[in-house]
């Protein structure tokens, strides 16, 4: 196929225009144009080909070339159209995933540049900057950005939560950081009482301090606010176990296991709850699942799996 585009751009365009008019041929010619760098000419045909072309491999190539060309031409709508094709029809294809990662990354960069250009002083710009610092592990700078936003508008939803999270993420937090963070989460809940994340983190803080009734209260609220929040149900169940309320822990932990069937912590805690509530057989089943997920090598000799790969330090 590439042999038809071995000449210069104009001859390629010529060869395309002379090609048969069926959908597959149009698509192939468009791909040839795209691969030779003639994206402006190629893109309309590639978009038109999405519907009529039925051949799977051809559709995959249309998607890949389409994304590349649309990104080159800064055509966001077209980019999303081709990405939609790839992610829907080729969700496990390495080429499709590779292209998608780059495309989404470039789209993200482009959007953030737009934000910086059009509204550099907006809280959204500060929030984005703070999040960027967070991803780089620059917790102190992120904290400053969140505080700058709150100085302008202390009632913006989500910012106290993010600030609290940044405070807790510091590698060497001082002795007062946990209580400082706790205040931020509480303020968040005053602004947005439906913030399940804030309730959850408050539950975790209470659990770390062994304030079990507080932990139970917070995790219960988080679970009620977001019935799909598996970790909240797990936190609730684990706190009830700590309170030796084994029977009461079973229902939330069963929910946690249902929501997060691959979470070993959920299975382990459910196993403990079952066992200590007297349901030893159910406990054994959950322990078995837990062992399978964590791949525990210890145990009866016949159950030992092989070793893992090297390149890790203790």
């Amino acid at each position: 196929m590439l042999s038809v585009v071995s000449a210069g751009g104009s001859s390629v365009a010529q060869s395309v225009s002379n090609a048969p008019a069926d959908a597959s041929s149009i698509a192939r010619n468009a791909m040839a144009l795209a691969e030779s760098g003639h994206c402006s000419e190629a893109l309309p045909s590639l978009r038109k080909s999405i519907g009529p072309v039925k051949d799977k491999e051809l559709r995959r190539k249309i998607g890949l070339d389409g994304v590349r060309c649309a990104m080159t031409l800064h055509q966001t709508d077209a980019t999303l159209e081709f990405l939609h094709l790839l992610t829907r029809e080729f969700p496990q294809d390495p080429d499709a995933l590779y292209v998608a990662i780059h495309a989404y990354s470039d789209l993200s960069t482009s959007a953030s540049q737009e934000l910086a250009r059009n509204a550099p002083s907006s809280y959204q710009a500060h929030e984005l900057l703070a999040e960027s610092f967070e991803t780089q592990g620059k917790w102190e700078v992120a904290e400053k950005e969140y505080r700058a936003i709150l100085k302008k508008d202390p009632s913006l939803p989500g910012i106290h939560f993010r600030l609290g999270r940044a405070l807790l993420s510091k590698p060497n937090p001082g002795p007062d950081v946990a209580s400082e963070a706790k205040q931020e989460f509480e303020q968040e809940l005053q602004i947005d009482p439906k913030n399940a994340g804030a309730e959850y983190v408050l539950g975790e803080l209470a659990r770390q301090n062994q304030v079990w009734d507080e932990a139970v209260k917070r995790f219960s609220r988080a679970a009620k606010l977001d019935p799909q929040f598996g970790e909240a149900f797990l936190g609730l169940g684990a706190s009830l176990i700590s309170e030796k309320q084994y029977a009461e822990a079973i229902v939330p932990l069963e929910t946690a296991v249902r929501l997060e069937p691959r979470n070993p912590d959920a299975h382990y805690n459910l196993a403990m709850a079952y066992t200590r509530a007297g349901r030893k057989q159910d406990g054994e089943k959950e322990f078995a699942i837990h062992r399978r997920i964590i791949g525990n090598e210890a145990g009866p000799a016949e159950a030992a799996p092989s070793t893992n790969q090297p390149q890790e330090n203790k």
Partner: protein
Amino acid sequence: MKAPALGYSLGPGPTGRRDFLRGITGTFAFSALPRFARAVMQPVYPFEEVFPITSGITWKHTAGHSPQKYLPETTGAGCAFLDYDNDGWMDIFLVNSGKCDFYDPSPPLRNALYRNNRDGTFTDVTEKAGVAAGGYGQGVAVGDYDADGFPDIYVAQYGRSILYHNNGDGTFTDVTEKAGLAAPGWSSSAVWFDYDNDGRLDLFVCRFVDFDKSKNLPCTADNKLGYCIPHLYKPMSSWLFHNNGDGTFTDVSKSSGIGKYLGKGWGVVATDINNDGRMDLFVSNDTVANFLFVNRGQGTFEEIGQQAGTAYSDAGRPRSGMGVDSADFNQDGWMDLFVANIDHEAYSLYQNNHDETFDDIAAPNGIASASKLMSGWGLKFFDYDNDGNLDLMIANGHPDDLIENIYENVKYREPLLLFHNSGNGLKNVSAESGPAFAKPMSARGLAIGDFNNDGAVDVLVSTNNEAPVLLRNTIGSQNHWLGLKLVGKKANIDAVGARISYQAGDLKRSRMKVGGGSYLSSHDPRLVLGIGQHVKIDWLEIIWPQPSGLKQRFTDLPIDRYIMVREGGEKWE
């Protein structure tokens, strides 16, 4: 301590206090006051380091750290307090590395046996005693397996372990082959205890991973070779040897159920978690679940770690279990457990729920926060201030010498931790316990023992590739105490598993003599019973281990000295 004599007379005739003071100030002319003030103000710390120049212990551990980073290089070695010559004074044994498939030191390395000179100093008697060995040593377990009254030494090694029989004349004989205790592979901690209650000491030997030179894996951090996380190596089953009573042992690992379980054993303590009179085993494993082998009688064990809640973290994750111990730290009559782990895992204090389950109460006792970034090895519950409550000391140090390149807040050398038991829980008192608890160490083993017989239990810490650290207890003798050496007759001679209870006024306490505990180390076999400021022990009761089960009660006991109690003897000696 009595005040020293002043060295001059106050002169003839009556001398008033005013004149006396004037005399002193005249003599010293104020120049000594700053020194005096410093002496008065000097804080009293519970332990002080006894340096080699004082103790005479000049031996150092050599790990043989190599560019290839063979894993055994970072895990040793252990230490022991023992009275090898039965003179009533604790001697010291130190384990070294040696020749193996990945290491051939020149000149050869050797273990060290130091005889206690009874004056705070020690003499190296290794060569005469014949315990220099030469293999790649890891741990040591001391026990009188043939009940001849002299403690024998088992050195757990990478390669082939050694049993040294104490000849009773200051020398030892390697009887490993005859005994059948070579335990080939990578052995770590070991413990003498009587699992089948036949009155003879059996031996449990922890085995670590399947490793030899050809199986060493290249692990990197920052493009430098480092020591691998053990989860990369295959787990192995540990050993249980039954004492046949004729100087030989039978490998009962399989028939006992122990051999069915593959682990990566580091620490072991023999205890009785369910008060059934049979000794159980708590074994820490690295990167896989810990084992709690409950002795069900008939020579069999059931592994219940998972159901008991001692196998994993609270979140159900295996950790890097290293040092272990067991004690009834809260005096409810049931033995609790402790395990130390690696950084970012926290250590666990498992409180016995009296039903073969445990709850981790490390957090409310300040242990979880104190150990969050630490890696713990040797550790022991003991009553360092003789107030009657069991305190806890932990030796720490990260196994990976590159760890500081990975985590800025985790150190390769770490200080000791000391937790004081007030009777209402443990409190971290390391920060206020002086320089001994600020010194960064690459600690591994920890053994307790009263080397100066003052009733204040001292501590020996062995380090990796450094000199051992001897800590003298400076405050234990400020309270009253009774030291106890138990000699079993029908029960095992070391009385491992004995239950001791005593009362002094309103202080009523009970103790159990566990087997082993710590990491790669072995302890003074005597028990020191603290009674605080009480000046009398009302009664002392000993329940000897099975098959004896004899209960003996004593009154009219002395204090502030050691006594020997022989099983069935009418009076203490």
